[in-house]
């Protein structure tokens, strides 16, 4: 039986000349530029650490689902284009192939999330943000960024590997991203963010902005941590496990 490490190495070899890693890096840099470009005002220095924890979930909800879509589709499309599945199914176990491809994609996307996280923290230190660095909150932010991304990646991976026509996963990803971002602006219907995997970045946001009024605007604004719905987080983990099992099962039954 081919080891999962060997299968991962094969995935790496397959992506040669497809510039998938470079594309993922460019997208991450683009996200960081979009957020961090511009003057670092006094306001940002004062609230910096908490401000980022408040702002970044929205940016993540735009960029990370698109990045997931791009990586998953890129990895699976190379198999569909060369009708490779019928060859691979005779060389290796379908379940292991599903796992290796998923793991490779998740490693790529985790590296991007980690890179983005490190740059944000570095930016804070370089601009001497006020107050001590809230490490615990930033680790929580990393967890709450990675988990919804894994869930979305699972959806994209499953669709991309099952459907030969990549329009279906791409369309799902774009519509999902749009709905997810939109749900974050609908404060009155919080269940929508919990229902949509693309809205989970908003559902797990744990820093809120207070003190904003039409008259005073940002003058008395302050940021505070809010209640974290751990039960929802648990439900997210369980549904990701369920989705993984369903996707793996469907793939192992796939006829080519």
């Amino acid at each position: 039986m081919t080891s999962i490490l060997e299968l991962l190495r094969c995935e790496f070899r397959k992506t040669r000349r497809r510039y998938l890693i470079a594309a993922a890096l460019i997208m991450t840099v683009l996200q960081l530029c979009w957020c961090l470009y511009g003057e670092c005002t006094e306001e940002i220095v004062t609230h910096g650490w908490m401000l980022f924890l408040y702002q970044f979930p929205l940016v993540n909800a735009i960029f990370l689902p698109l990045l997931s879509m791009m990586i998953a589709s890129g990895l699976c499309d190379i198999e569909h284009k060369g009708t490779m599945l019928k060859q691979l199914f005779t060389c290796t176990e379908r379940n292991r192939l599903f796992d290796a491809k998923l793991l490779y994609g998740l490693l790529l996307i985790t590296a991007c999330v980690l890179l983005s996280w490190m740059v944000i923290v570095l930016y804070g230190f370089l601009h001497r943000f006020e107050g001590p660095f809230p490490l615990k909150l930033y680790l929580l932010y990393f967890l709450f960024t990675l988990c919804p991304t894994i869930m979305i990646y699972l959806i994209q991976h499953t669709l991309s590997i099952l459907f030969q026509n990549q329009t279906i996963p791409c369309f799902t990803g774009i519509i999902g991203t749009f709905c997810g971002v939109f749900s974050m602006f609908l404060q009155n219907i919080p269940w929508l963010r919990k229902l949509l995997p693309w809205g989970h970045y908003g559902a797990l946001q744990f820093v809120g902005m207070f003190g904003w009024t039409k008259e005073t605007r940002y003058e008395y604004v302050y940021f505070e941590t809010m209640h974290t719905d751990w039960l929802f987080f648990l439900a997210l983990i369980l549904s990701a496990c369920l989705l993984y099992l369903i996707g793996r099962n469907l793939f192992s039954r796939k006829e080519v």
Partner: protein
Amino acid sequence: MKEIVTTSGLTKVYGNSICIDQLNMNVRENRIYGFLGPNGAGKSTTLKLLLGLVHPTGGEISIFGEQLSAKSRMNILRQTGSLIESPSYYGHLTAKENLKIYAALLQVPERNIEKVLQIVRLDKQHNKKLSKFSLGMKQRFGLASALLSFPKLLILDEPSNGLDPAGIQEMRELIKSLPREYGMTVIVSSHILSEIDQIADDIGIIASGKMMYQGELNRLHETDSDKTLEEIFLDFTREAQSL
């Protein structure tokens, strides 16, 4: 002689249409089995069933004396090479890079790569991207990947597709040499009678999913000496259509 592949009552149904109907197939060791049938007769589906690429609706498949099941499948396939319909490849990679991936998955030594590229005469093109290959070269690459592990059983579905006359002859000679030189058993499907007539030892004629004839090719010629193989074949396929 030992039978390396046997199917009994093999059936595949898609919706309401029966694609393979109670097919009994027997392939003997070290022989070339020509699987003949008109377009849409169920040749490719049968070969896919043998490889576990599609799941049977009914019946049993036994390869190397072992019943094909989810558990035994990989063990059987490790000793099987295949080229089904069109060759599979990563177009953005070179022939050598493609074969390196197969070699890693099949856990065979990389020295086999050079060997199979020489066999199919692609050794001078190993650094060329597959997307730049002609149809005939892709077909030869498909055969190289099927041969990579030097399997006991080789399943080839219409291997001459896209080849020019010289390429067809070369492919024919190569297939004929495989049982002799490497001890392989070859199942080769085609709808071209003359091709099968020149290479096969045994023959199976399939029409409308049913096995119409199975046995030695010589015996088929003897069934009606007044008729050509083409006429005999047409008799069988007409019979199936009228059923």
